[in-house]
């Protein structure tokens, strides 16, 4: 019937490698991660005052200097470290907590579900942005605080989604079959059900990471992060403080802004890729479209393509 003899994971990895969107996204993310890891070796000191403040791009400072006379290229590259770390850490934690609470809630049902659903709902109706601002200004600034605040305000939606997915799997026959053969609940959740949710977990992770990067930059831009560290958010904060727009020194904020946009774009591309790999219908339809003359496609009418060789 089917020629594939690989496990779902192998199929997935090869699918994502073959998918053009996902491949582009992965390459971009790897470039950023590479720069973030090896950046300090390649750039000038990002905090040193090197030149005249707000000097435009030159051969010495490729992207110019900011209001403190620091190198913008170095700031952009060094700034990516904490921003990406907090972003991906939040993504992982949100998915982990969401899977844990949503998964338990959806699998066990009954009283456990009543209690955990209530908890999820309370966090869902809490206004996230004000809470984020209050917590961030009240707690000592730093990456750990930022991650904590973002996870606290962001986990509930994921838990909700995973809970409903878990509930549908809970009623499937393969789960009943595992129960009847004596399997322990925790093993059923982890070994039997979680692999089936892989696409949901992966796209949740990516969605949460994009959210975390955006929200984190937002908080720091408002001055709620540690302004003495170099991150994409504080870069923008200082650019704004130094009235970069008024002075027309675009080079102080465009590199950071563009980096944020490109990273989010790359993550979204990966998300699309995962969607296509795990939902073969999307690919099938594209292949189909590529194989028939465009004028032949009318919605709801099967095309007739007679090939007379």
């Amino acid at each position: 019937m089917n020629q594939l003899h690989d496990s779902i994971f192998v199929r997935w990895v090869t699918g994502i490698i073959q998918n053009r969107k996902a491949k582009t996204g992965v390459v971009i993310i790897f470039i950023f991660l590479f720069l973030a890891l090896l950046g300090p070796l390649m750039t000038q000191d990002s905090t040193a005052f090197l030149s005249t403040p707000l000097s435009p791009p030159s051969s010495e400072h490729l992207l110019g200097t900011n209001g403190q006379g620091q190198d913008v290229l170095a700031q952009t590259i060094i700034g990516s470290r904490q921003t990406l770390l907090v972003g991906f850490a939040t993504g992982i934690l949100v998915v982990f907590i969401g899977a844990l609470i949503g998964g338990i809630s959806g699998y066990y049902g009954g009283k456990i579900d009543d209690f955990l659903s209530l908890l999820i709902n309370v966090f869902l109706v809490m206004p996230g942005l004000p809470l984020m601002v209050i917590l961030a200004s009240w707690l000592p600034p730093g990456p750990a605080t930022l991650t904590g605040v973002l996870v606290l305000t962001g986990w509930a939606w994921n838990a909700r989604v995973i809970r409903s997915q878990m509930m549908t799997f809970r009623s499937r026959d393969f789960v009943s079959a595992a129960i009847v053969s004596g399997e322990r609940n925790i093993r059923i959740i982890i070994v039997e059900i979680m692999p089936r949710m892989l696409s949901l977990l992966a796209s949740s992770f990516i969605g949460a990471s994009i959210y975390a990067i955006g929200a984190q930059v937002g908080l720091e831009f408002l001055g709620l992060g540690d302004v003495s560290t170099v991150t994409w958010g504080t870069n923008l904060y200082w650019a704004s403080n130094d009235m970069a727009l008024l002075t027309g020194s675009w080079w102080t904020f465009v590199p950071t802004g563009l980096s944020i946009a490109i990273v989010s774009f790359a993550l979204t591309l990966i998300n699309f890729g995962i969607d296509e790999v795990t939902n073969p219908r999307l690919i099938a339809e594209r292949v189909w479209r590529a194989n028939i003359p465009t004028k032949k496609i009318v919605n709801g009418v099967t095309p007739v393509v007679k090939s007379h060789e």
Partner: protein
Amino acid sequence: MNKPLLSIENLCVNYITSGRPIKAVNNVSFEIQEGEIFGLVGESGSGKSTVIQAVLRTLPPPAVITDGKVVINDKDILSISDTEVLKYRWKEISIVMQSALNALNPVLTISEQIEDVLREHSSLQGQAIQDRTEELLSLIDIDISRLDSYPHQLSGGMRQRVVIAIALALMPPLIIMDEPTTALDVIVEREIIAKIIELRKNLGFTILFITHDLNLLLEFADRVAVMKNGKLVEMDSAQNIRGGGKHDYTQKLIGSLPSASGPRERGMLSKPENLSLGSQPILEIQNLSKSFIDSGIFNSTSIDVVKNVSFQIYPGEIIGLVGESGSGKSTIAKLIARLIRPTSGNILLNGNNKKVSEAQKVPLEYRKQVQLVFQDPFGSLNSVHTVFHHLARPLVRHRLVTKQNLFQTIIENLETVGLKPGEAFARKFPHEMSGGERQRVAIARALSLNPDLIIADEPTSMLDVSIRMEILEIFARMRIEKNLTIIFITHDLASARYIADRIFVLHNGSIVEENSAEQLIQSPKEEYTKQLIKAASPGWLESLSLDNGDMKNA
């Protein structure tokens, strides 16, 4: 012979994939004469639905029609423009879909859905539309007071009749019926078919009837075409096919199912020479009841699914639990497998008098003794794991084998259910196997624990007709070899008759009749059992139409 109403010549349909295109329909040609009932029969994946969807040009991507002609009214549907295609749908050909629940829009009343077709495709207006709608409802014997009902307020049979009414709305000369009764219970199925035949007699349309059930088709079709793997393997009059057919495959389809009436003739299963049952019941069910509570915000309603059911089963017995959908048979299966807890009553295994309703945790021992085989082999295996995983887990969990022997044991278990070579199958994933192979894996998994009792919940109903008997044979053989006790749950009286020693007939949550299989079939006592048997016997159509005639005269 007259000019045919519909003629299909060399129809070819491909499914486009990233690799080679898959030939779903390969050079199919047939003609349908005016007024006849033409049956197209084939198992799942044979391409029968693809053929009729190609005729309507409603095939979704990734399908492409690559060759052929479909001529109706001197027009080749495959060469006219797309807007013209839309015009001939419903006017020249209408279709009755398989699942009436999906074919009807749940948020529109049935009158709105019938009127919608009339408004869109006919010149009728205002009062005339309403009159026609009421006329259509009376045609299908649905009371006019139900006009404003929503689909969910109607029974499955009524919904299917509404779909037929919509197909009849414009009086097209040809109506295609794509498995119109597959989702229905057998008694309702028979009523719907009788209704269709009666309507055709009065209104004179032509029917193209698609089904996987050749025996059903042979009751009323004039001509029958058999499809396999996208090709037409045989086409003949129903009479000749009934006589056995020429093609091997047709013969296999006919011979594959036992009948529910008359003497036992076909499909003899292995039965023990002389059945020696233990004296102590292996399973005793006492006053078992289960009600589901549907709790809303303002009120909660309770539905009694199983009502006060009691029975005893002795070691080595095969029990047939027969009932239609909604009779509570699957709930009983889940109760005995202890997937759900009963509202009241006891389940005693081997005389172990521990009240199930009180037990918090099901002991591992019980999980070893009682196994369940599910209806849907696509759903009961986890698509991310290999066959090896499915068979290894129960053995490891119950510590039945050592690590060194694990692979060898699994291979043996696979070969017991006819999956040879076991090594190759152990490495496969569920999607790499056919439905029958998957069901064999599920059975092997249940058997691997050496259970005392196996509950088989409709294990053959999702499988193709030609492999059902093979699956039944596995159960029958295991009973002899391993002295298994089996509860065989089914809606199909005929297969219960052939495998079971005793049959319990379940209706609305209670057992209405129980007897040894042959006695129950030969001399049923309850009216409901008689109905079931009649519906499952050849020649039911004549008796049903006679009944209708009587009702009209009276």
